[in-house]
C-alpha cells in the first residue's frame, strides 16, 4: 500500500499512561532520537504525586510531552497534535488538551470494563464514536501485539505486557520517520544482564514500527526537517542535570571544593542524585537529616573554604530561611537552589509553579538581601548555576537560584559548552598578606566588590571569630552600636545592588518601544518569546524582555519599561514579579497569572496581549 509523506514544521506529542506504563521512559527515548535527527525540541514531563497510585486510576496517570520542530522553538507546546493514551484514565485526563483535529492513539487492550469504570467512563470512548467528530482515533491492540511478537521467548506474560510502551514508541518512530538504532543500543546497555528483556523490547518496538508501515490504518507519515540551530556540537539536556553540571563546572574552574548539603525533595532530588555520582570530581555530597542541616552544613563548608551549595523546593526553602540570614550576616558564599513546585504547603509537589519568588526575595527575618536569579530553559540551568557560584564567591554572599519543576525535568537540545570559555572564576583565600599591623580585619572590604576576605581555618595567623550577631565594621567583632548597625545594614544592601554593575545592557527582543512589553522571568521565557514572535509576525508592536536577575534588577530596566504603553508580566503565580516592578518603577504593569501547575501557554499570552491593545 502506498503511504504519503507530509512535511510539517512542528509537532507536539503527548505520551500518557499509567505510572506503571513507562511513559517517562518512552518520552525520554523519543526525545533523544529527535535530538539526534537535529530538530529543535522542548519537553515537559508530568508525574503524579503518588509513587504509584492504583493502576488505572486518574491519579496514577503519568505523561510526557515533546514538541519538536525544524524551527527554533521555546516551549513544549500548548496543545498536542498527537496523544498516545495507554489506558482510559490517560485518555480521560488528557483528551481535552488535544488540538482539534488531532490524532489519538489508544492501546485498545487497556480499555477493559474495569479500567473504563475506574476512569469514570460509562461507555467505551474508543467505540462509542464520541471522539470521532473532533479527532482522528487509532485504536491499536498493543497488548495483544506485543504478546504475539514475543510468544516464543518464554517470558512471563506480565513482563511481555510491559513492553507495550516500546510498541507505541516504534509506531511513533515510524510515523515521524525516526531511526531506531539509538534506542536499540540504549536497551542493550540498560539491560545488559537481561538479554530476554532487550529482545522483547526490541521486538515490541519493531512490531510497532512495522505496524505503521504495513497495516492500512496509518496512511500518512510526517517528516520534520532539521532545525537551523547555530553550528556546533549538541546533546539533549534535562534541567536538573544541566544545573548539576553548572555547579561542577564552577568548582572545576574556581578550583575550590564543591560541598553539597541537601535533603531529598521533589523535584530537586535529582540534583543530589547527580552530584553524588560525581565523586571522581572530588565533589562532596551530604544527605543531611533535614533541610536545616543541609544548608547549615553547607555554610560550615563555606566557612572552611569549600563552596557550599544546597538545593530544595519551596517547603524546604521555608526551613532554610533562618540559616540564609546567617550566611547574609556572616558574608559567606552559599548557593541556595529552589526548584519550585506547586504550593502552598505540600501543595502540588510534582507540578510546576513560580510562586516562591517573593519568598526568595523576602523570606528572611530582618534586612537580609540576597541576590536572586532564575533559569529560563533546561539548558540555561547550566549557566545560571555557574553564574550563581561565581557571584556568591566574588561578593561573599549567599545567592538564591530559582528554577522550577518544568525546567528541572524538561529538556532541550543543547550546544556543548566549553569549560575554558566560561567567565573567569578565580578565588584567592586570605593569607598573612591580609594582616594590617599584625591584625586581621575579617570585615575589611574589597574596594570594587565590597566583599570581605575569605580566611579559612587552617590558615596561619588569621584566626578569627564570626557569628550571627551584628558585626562591627572592619573587625567583625560583636557590636551593638546603633550607627554601626545602620551602616552594616546599608552596606550589605549596597553590596548586593552593586552586582548590577556587571550586567551588560538588557536585551529587548523586538523594537525598543511599542505597545506592549512582555516581561518575564524563569521558565515562562519560552512561552513569552514564542507569543512575542507570533504577535510580531502578526504586525503587532510587541517586544519581550526576559530577566535573568531579579535582585538586583538591571539598571537600564526602568528606561526600557517606560518606552511601552503596556507592560504585561505573565507568571505562574498570583502576581509576584509584578509587585517588584510596580513598586520599583511605578509602572502600571498588568499580570497574566495562571496557577494550574503547568506552564503558561504561548496562546494565553497572545490573548492577553491582544486584550491589552485590542
Amino acid at each position, binding site marked *: 500500500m502506498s503511504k504519503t509523506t507530509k512535511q510539517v514544521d512542528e509537532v507536539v506529542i503527548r505520551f500518557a499512561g499509567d505510572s506503571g506504563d513507562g511513559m517517562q521512559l518512552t518520552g525520554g527515548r523519543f526525545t533523544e532520537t529527535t*535530538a539526534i535527527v*537535529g530538530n529543535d525540541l522542548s519537553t515537559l514531563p508530568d508525574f503524579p504525586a503518588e509513587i504509584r497510585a492504583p493502576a488505572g486510576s486518574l491519579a496514577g496517570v503519568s505523561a510526557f510531552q515533546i514538541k519538536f520542530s525544524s524551527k527554533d522553538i521555546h516551549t513544549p507546546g500548548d496543545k498536542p497534535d498527537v496523544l498516545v493514551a495507554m489506558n482510559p484514565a490517560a485518555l480521560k485526563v488528557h483528551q481535552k488538551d488535544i488540538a482539534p483535529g488531532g490524532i489519538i492513539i489508544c492501546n485498545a487492550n487497556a480499555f477493559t470494563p474495569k479500567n473504563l469504570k475506574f476512569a469514570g467512563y460509562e461507555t467505551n470512548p474508543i467505540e462509542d464514536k464520541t471522539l470521532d467528530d473532533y479527532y482522528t482515533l487509532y485504536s491499536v491492540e498493543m497488548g495483544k501485539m506485543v504478546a504475539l511478537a514475543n510468544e516464543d521467548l518464554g517470558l512471563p506474560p506480565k513482563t511481555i505486557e510491559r513492553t507495550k510502551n516500546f510498541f507505541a514508541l516504534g509506531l511513533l518512530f515510524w510515523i515521524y520517520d525516526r531511526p531506531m538504532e539509538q534506542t536499540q543500543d540504549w536497551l542493550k546497555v540498560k539491560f545488559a544482564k537481561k538479554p530476554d528483556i532487550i529482545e522483547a523490547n526490541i521486538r515490541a518496538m519493531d512490531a510497532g514500527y512495522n505496524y505503521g508501515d504495513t497495516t492500512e490504518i496509518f496512511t500518512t507519515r510526517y517528516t520534520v526537517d532539521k532545525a537551523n540551530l547555530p553550528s556546533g556540537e549538541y*546533546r539533549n539536556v534535562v534541567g536538573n542535570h544541566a544545573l548539576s553540571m553548572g555547579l561542577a563546572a564552577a568548582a572545576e574552574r574556581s578550583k575550590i571544593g564543591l*560541598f553539597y*548539603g541537601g535533603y531529598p525533595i521533589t523535584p530537586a532530588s535529582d540534583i543530589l542524585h547527580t552530584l553524588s555520582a560525581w565523586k*571522581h570530581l572530588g565533589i562532596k555530597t551530604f544527605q543531611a537529616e533535614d533541610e536545616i542541616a543541609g544548608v547549615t552544613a553547607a555554610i*560550615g563548608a563555606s566557612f*572552611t573554604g569549600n563552596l557550599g551549595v544546597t538545593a530544595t523546593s519551596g517547603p524546604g526553602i521555608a526551613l532554610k530561611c533562618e540559616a540564609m540570614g546567617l550566611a547574609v550576616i556572616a558574608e559567606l558564599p552559599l548557593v541556595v537552589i529552589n526548584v519550585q513546585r506547586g504550593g502552598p504547603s505540600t501543595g502540588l509537589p510534582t507540578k510546576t509553579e513560580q510562586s516562591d519568588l517573593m519568598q526568595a526575595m523576602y523570606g528572611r527575618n530582618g534586612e537580609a538581601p540576597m541576590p536572586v536569579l532564575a533559569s529560563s530553559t533546561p539548558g540555561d540551568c547550566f549557566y545560571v548555576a555557574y553564574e550563581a557560584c561565581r557571584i556568591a564567591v566574588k561578593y561573599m554572599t549567599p545567592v538564591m537560584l530559582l528554577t522550577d519543576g518544568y525546567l528541572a525535568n524538561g529538556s532541550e537540545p543543547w550546544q*556543548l559548552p566549553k569549560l575554558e570559555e566560561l567567565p573567569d572564576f578565580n578565588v584567592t583565600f586570605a593569607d598573612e598578606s591580609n594582616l594590617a599591623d599584625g591584625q586581621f580585619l575579617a570585615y575589611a572590604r574589597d574596594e570594587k566588590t565590597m566583599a570581605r576576605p575569605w580566611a579559612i581555618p587552617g590558615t596561619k595567623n588569621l584566626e578569627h571569630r564570626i*557569628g550571627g550577631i551584628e558585626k562591627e565594621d572592619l573587625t567583625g567583632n560583636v557590636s551593638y552600636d546603633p550607627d554601626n548597625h545602620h551602616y552594616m545594614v546599608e552596606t550589605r544592601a549596597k553590596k548586593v545592588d552593586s552586582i548590577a554593575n556587571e550586567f551588560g545592557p538588557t536585551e529587548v527582543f523586538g523594537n525598543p518601544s511599542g505597545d506592549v512589553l512582555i516581561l518575564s522571568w524563569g521558565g515562562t521565557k519560552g512561552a513569552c518569546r514564542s507569543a512575542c514572535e507570533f504577535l510580531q509576525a502578526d504586525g503587532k508592536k510587541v517586544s519581550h524582555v526576559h530577566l535573568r536577575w531579579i535582585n538586583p534588577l538591571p539598571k537600564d530596566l526602568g528606561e526600557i519599561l517606560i518606552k511601552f504603553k503596556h507592560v504585561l508580566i505573565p507568571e505562574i503565580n498570583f502576581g509576584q514579579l509584578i509587585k517588584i516592578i510596580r513598586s520599583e518603577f511605578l509602572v502600571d504593569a498588568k499580570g497574566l497569572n495562571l496557577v494550574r501547575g503547568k506552564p503558561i501557554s504561548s496562546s494565553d499570552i497572545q490573548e492577553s496581549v491582544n486584550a491589552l491593545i485590542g
Partner: protein
Amino acid sequence: MTDAVKTYTKKDFTSDQAVRWCPGCGDYAILAQTQKVFPDLGVDKENFVFISGIGCSSRFPYYMDTYGFHTIHGRASAIASGVKLANPDLSVWVVTGDGDGLSIGGNHTIHLLRRNLDINVMLFNNRIYGLTKGQYSPTSEVGKITKSTPMGSLDTPFNPLTLALGAGATFVSRTIDKQTKHMQAMIMRSHGHKGTSFMEIYQNCNIFNDGAFAQLTDKETKSDTVLLLENGEPMLFGAEKQKGVRLDGNTPIVVEIGDKWGVDDVLVHDESDYVIASLLSNMTYQPDFPDPIGVLYAIEAETYEDRMVAQIDLAIEKKPSGSIQDILNSGDTWVVD
C-alpha cells in the same frame, strides 16, 4: 600541617574579647581549663575550629583565639559537620548548651553521634536556659519552677548520656565545672577519641539555677554523690572509698564495703561495655546513686569522613580524568554545521 607543632601557652588561646558571662558563672572555669589544655594537644592552633549555637555557653568561641563561628540556635553540630567534611584535617569542637544541643538542636546532636564524625562536643548542662533568662530546659527536673513553669515543669527530663548512647555514640563522658583537673583530663580524652566525642559538663548557672549541682561540688557531700570512673577499676566512692556499685542481677545497687561485700564484689568499669555504660548513665538524677563522672563509654569505630574520603579516592582511582568537560560531552551528541 607541614611544620612541627609550636609550643603554646594558655595566652595563645586567649582572644582579645572581654569575657561577658555573669560573675561566678561556671562557664569561666570551662574556658580556663580549655585554654590550659589546648597548648598540649599537639595541634597547630590555626587548625582548631570552635562552632557554637546560641546560648550563654555558645559565646565560648569568641574567647578562644582559634577559628570560631557563633552560629544560630541548635545548629552547631550540623555546621560543624560541614566544616569537618570540607576539611577533615581540622580539629573541630562544638560548644553547646542543654537548650541548644538537646532542645532545638536535639536532632542534629543524635544524627552527628550516629554518623560518628570526628568532632568533639562539649555540652554545657546547667539544666536551664541561661541566655533567655531562666526558662526550664529538657534537662530540668520535673516540677521545676521557672519563668515559663510557675507551677512547676511537667516533663521528664532527658538524661543526655543515655540519649547519646541510644543514638549510637562511640564516646560518652561527663565532668563538672568545678572539677578542674578532671575536666582537663576529659578534654584530653575527647581530643584523643577518633569519632564523635560527647562530653557533658555539669555547669552552674549562678543566676538562674544556682546550686543545681551543689550536692556534687560541695566539700561535704561530693565524695558521696560523685562516682569517679576509671577504666578497669572497681566503682568505689565515698570519703574513704567505703561504698561501691554492684550488680544485683541486672539492677545496680550501692553496697557498703565491709563484712558482707568486699572490693572484689564491686563492678569493674569497662569503657567498652554498652550495658555498663547504660547502667551508669541511668544512675543520673537518681536519689540513691552517685552521679558517675569520667568516660562512661568509648569504642573504636570508623568515622564518616574516613569513609567519605575513601569513597572519593576510590572513585578518582577508577575514573582519573576528573573533568566535568567529559560529562558535558557525554551521552548522545550530534553536530550541527
